[in-house]
């Protein structure tokens, strides 16, 4: 319950933060919402010698539409997403997922950037961002770079972030008209990490067929999974039961669950299929203007 000692830094700018990260290398950890890092430190599973607290860096808490993208700054909290009009209007998928992350206290602190940067396949936003084809703006001592979400997750708890880099912004393309998304999550109890989570985003064409689809899977493999074959199978198809069933099966085939405290592997795989079908069904319904 008592973390190991560390030296605390509260840089006033991103540049200072990056400077500290460069100086201390692997010894340093970024602290934002703290809900991944602090529990690990309390259990003494993590013992960084330096904590770089970015919470007081100004200008990182923006959430805005710009240039065809939704741009979410590093310090935007889950509760901000929950309360955002643009999220509610254009990203029901994000809203679904956010509401199911932990609990109100945690959502007041936890950030979307931290949820991604932790590289935890059990976190919800990775799958959501895979479904939405997000890009991540990363800044480090070598400057700024933009990494597609598909290249971000490297291994369990490992991302494309170098030790002197900060995930500065999440950039999500604004979906075209007639789009919808949904997140389905099975939990052992409310607020828990997912047994299985499925994020689905679809755009329909004028005829009501699926123009494009994005599907991300939570906690069914060592990394967050983008169900590409399932996505591809949907393109150009009418969103009928047979189409969704097939996509569900392909998503299940793409999953790599293991048996753990949450559930056995066979159940998880079956639930990837079922939740994919349900998420797609609701995404389509939302794209059609329903709920």
């Amino acid at each position, binding site marked *: *319950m*008592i*973390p*190991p*000692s*560390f*030296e*605390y830094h*509260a840089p006033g700018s991103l540049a200072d933060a990056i400077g500290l990260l460069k100086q201390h290398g692997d010894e340093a950890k970024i*602290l934002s919402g*703290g*809900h991944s890092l*602090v*529990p690990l*430190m*309390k*259990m003494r599973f993590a013992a960084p010698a330096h*904590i770089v*607290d970015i*919470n007081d860096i100004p200008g990182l808490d923006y959430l805005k539409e710009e240039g065809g993208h939704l741009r979410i700054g590093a310090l935007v909290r889950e*509760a901000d997403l929950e309360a955002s009009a643009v999220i509610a209007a254009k990203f029901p998928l994000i809203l679904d997922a956010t509401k199911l992350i*932990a*609990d*109100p*206290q*945690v959502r*007041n*602190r936890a950030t979307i950037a931290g949820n991604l940067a932790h590289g935890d396949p059990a976190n919800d936003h990775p799958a959501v961002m895979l479904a939405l084809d997000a890009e991540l703006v990363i800044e480090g001592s070598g400057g700024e770079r933009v990494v597609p979400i598909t290249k971000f997750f490297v291994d369990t708890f490992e991302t494309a972030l170098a030790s002197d880099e900060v995930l500065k912004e999440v950039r999500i393309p604004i979906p075209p008209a007639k789009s919808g998304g949904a997140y389905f999550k099975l939990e052992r109890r*409310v*607020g828990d990490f997912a047994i299985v989570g499925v994020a689905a985003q679809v755009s329909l064409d004028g005829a009501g067929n699926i123009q494009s689809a994005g599907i991300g899977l939570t906690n069914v493999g060592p990394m967050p999974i983008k169900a590409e074959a399932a996505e591809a199978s949907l393109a150009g198809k009418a969103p009928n039961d047979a189409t969704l069933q097939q996509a569900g099966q392909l998503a299940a085939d793409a999953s790599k669950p293991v048996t753990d405290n949450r559930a056995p592997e066979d159940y998880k795989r079956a639930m990837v299929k079922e939740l994919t079908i349900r998420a797609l069904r609701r995404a389509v319904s939302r794209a059609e203007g329903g709920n």
Partner: protein
Amino acid sequence: MSTVNVTVTVNGVERSAEVEPRTLLVYFLRDHLRLTGTHIGCDTSNCGACTVMLDGKIIKSCTLFAVQANGKSVKTVEGLAENGKLHPIQEGFKEEHGLQCGFCTPGMMLSALELLQKNPHPSEDEIRWGISGNLCRCTGYQNIVKAIQYAADKMAKGEA
């Protein structure tokens, strides 16, 4: 062992202490300020017994370093009653038997406070979601829901 000076406005009063950077806010409140109404029920940031408000938003004080609260304001259970008058939420918990052992109660009431500030007329379902970060082992939550409804009604009447 290096320490830092932390100054936090707690329940409207500026309070300072020299603490290690690793000192969690909950220990700052309890060990240093002796505000023991904020409780510790787990070590994994799950139970919500340590819930306080930081700049008007509920947080788990076991998952925030005290140094992060430097210069900010914190509200704890000890600051709920004002001018010797119980807050309607406190009253609701007593009137509706919303507590038994009382251990979860301070955190639970602060979650209720944020909920009612955001949503003055919550449904039963919204109340249950609003307190989903606070575990209670005694009441089965049913009377806590009633307590918060009581407070909502009372606060609505106060506004009118």
